[in-house]
């Protein structure tokens, strides 16, 4: 029987495994190789050992700024998005009539193509005629020149990315729907009020979902590209501009690899990122043992 199932296993998994080998594993290993070479696409790669890595870590004026931007973005936007998503999910987790409309409204922005939302937000942040400063002006505040200010460009991008919290929200919503109602009932008979129920029932019960959202959120934040790229292009600040204030790590990578064809350098950057994400995820998993309640 086992041989029979094994045969079927491979039949069924064949497409995915083929895809994995050809489109993921193979390219991954090849890019590992490239990261030790100088390769400008035109001529064949030349082995230069760890040259790319040492250039990045020591000499590249853009590398550390892009790391900084990415880390700030991650540290601010991930927790904020998580908290907002959870609060909204809690509010949306009822059966009130018309709740579907609300769910759609909150989820909608995350469905918007990043090109469209990038364009939209650049417009919203336009210092003169944009929505944001127009609203601020209504209450008598002269808003900053968002997209062209080293100080405000990143916050603007963070606000824009927060707008798309809908993705984690639906997952929270799904998690909340999985919490047994009788636990809440038991808690209310035990004398718990709404806050105690939230702290002692909701949070532990959805901790795996929080963990999932946290993990994917961190990975996603480290990999931000689309928003930053469109933002730079549409705001006229140029990719990563002004003054590298929105030069996200992957955007930097993209510039190096695809604008200037330092493919080896780009591969090295990609691998550094991959390793960083793996380490972060591993730490995350280790910490999770302390606070995530495993259902089974």
């Amino acid at each position: 029987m086992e041989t029979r199932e094994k045969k079927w296993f491979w039949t069924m998994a064949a497409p995915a495994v083929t895809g994995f080998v050809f489109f993921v594993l193979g390219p991954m290993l090849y890019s590992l190789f490239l990261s030790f070479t100088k390769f400008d696409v035109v001529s064949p790669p030349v082995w230069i050992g760890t040259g790319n890595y040492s250039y990045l870590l020591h000499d590249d004026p853009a590398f550390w700024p892009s790391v900084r931007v990415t880390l700030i973005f991650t540290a601010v936007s991930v927790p904020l998005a998580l908290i907002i998503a959870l609060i909204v999910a809690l509010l949306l987790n009822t059966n009130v009539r018309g709740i579907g409309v609300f769910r759609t409204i909150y989820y909608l922005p995350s469905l918007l193509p990043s090109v469209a939302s990038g364009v939209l937000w650049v417009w919203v942040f336009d210092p003169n005629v944009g929505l944001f400063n127009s609203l601020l002006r209504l209450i008598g505040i002269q808003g900053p020149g968002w997209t062209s200010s080293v100080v405000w460009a990143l916050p603007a991008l963070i606000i824009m990315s927060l707008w798309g919290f809908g993705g984690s929200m639906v997952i929270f919503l799904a998690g909340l729907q999985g919490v047994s109602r009788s636990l809440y009932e038991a808690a209310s008979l035990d004398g718990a009020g709404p806050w105690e129920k939230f702290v002692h029932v909701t949070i532990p019960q959805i901790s795996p979902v929080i963990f999932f959202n946290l993990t994917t959120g961190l990975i996603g934040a480290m990999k931000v590209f689309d928003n930053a790229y469109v933002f730079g292009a549409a705001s006229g600040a140029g990719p990563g501009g002004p003054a590298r204030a929105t030069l996200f790590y992957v955007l930097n990578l993209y510039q190096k690899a695809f604008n200037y064809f330092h493919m080896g350098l780009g591969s090295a950057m990609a691998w550094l990122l991959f390793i960083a994400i793996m380490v972060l995820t591993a730490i995350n998993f280790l910490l999770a043992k302390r606070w995530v309640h495993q259902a089974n």
Partner: protein
Amino acid sequence: RDSRVASPRELTWMLPSDLDRPLYEGILRDFAQAHPEIPIKPVWVTPGQYQVKLRTLLAANQAPDIFRCGDVWVANMLPFLHDITPLVERDAQQIDLDDIYPEVRAASCYKCRYYFIPSWYNVSLLYYNKKLFDERGVAYPRADWTWDNYIQAARKLTYRRPNGDQIWGSDMTTGWWGEWLIYVRQSGGDLFDPSVERCTLDSPSAVRGLEFYFDRMSQYHVVAPLGFSPPNGFAGGKIAMLPGGHVGSWVTYNKLPNLDWDIQVMPRGPFSQKGGEIAMDSWGISKTCNNPEAAWTLIKFITSKDGIRRQVLDGHLSIRRSVSAELKQQLTSRRPANRDASYRALQFGQRIPQSPDFIELAIDIVQPEVDLMLQGRQSPKQAAHKAAAAANQFMKVLGRSRSKG
């Protein structure tokens, strides 16, 4: 879907899908009539993506037979370009090289070889809004203006209309070298030494240029604060002068009936009037093209007198003296009235440094420091020194090894 890949006999021509598209569609139509034996397949791409697309196609060994190849990129793309010098020399008569403005012709050579033929050129000019000058009773810019004249005018032109509209005396180009490099050169400095092996932005005269660039905003307040430039800049009609503007904008400026604009050569700097940029918009042939002769026919068609004439009529700048002369009458009713300035400016023009690393250096290494300067985070001097240090480090470690490799 593979059927979309051109059949072997067909020539592929990669074109940016911008406002000139109708123009090129017309050229394609006429060429098909004139040369039915040479089928052309246009490949339209997003203008902003043109370079990336081209690069990836080159890398994929699927290069289009004919592609746009400004002088900015030529150093970079040399390995992919067909050396058309023999063709140019053979057909010198037919293409009438002498008819082309000498500065343009000079700028079309790379190390004395021809790799492309320009269809029009860009040169740095001072654009101005006549209506705003009239409104403030300021005299129009003159060819002998200095920086000071320019600043004085700009100050007068910076004001608030009774209805609350803020008018700015001048625009400022941010995000790339377009404007500051002019001032750096006009004050006697340059970004690089002639061999492009060392960044010289930290020289006192170069710093002087940067200071002028920056002071317009920080000292004279004739330029809108960073980010608060009125919507659509000069075209929006709220900015009186645009120094260093691009001739590519003529087409669109002329589509705005309320914009009464004209041009003048750039004001003179403390060191010289020279320093504006000359750039070519040109067409080259891919090394992989299996019928260069046919491609050459197309390029000749585009850059022939007829070809140039239709481009000029569409709003572009003529590279041929004969066409300029011929159309002079016809164009007087057209803006810019002072079309001559654009020819005169050629003598003040300079090419950007011919190095494969120039763009990366200017945009990714130097520009961030200039940005910080504009933010008021550092003085022009600090910016210049930091940029130079970073650029030199780049060239030492990556750029130089690259250009040698």
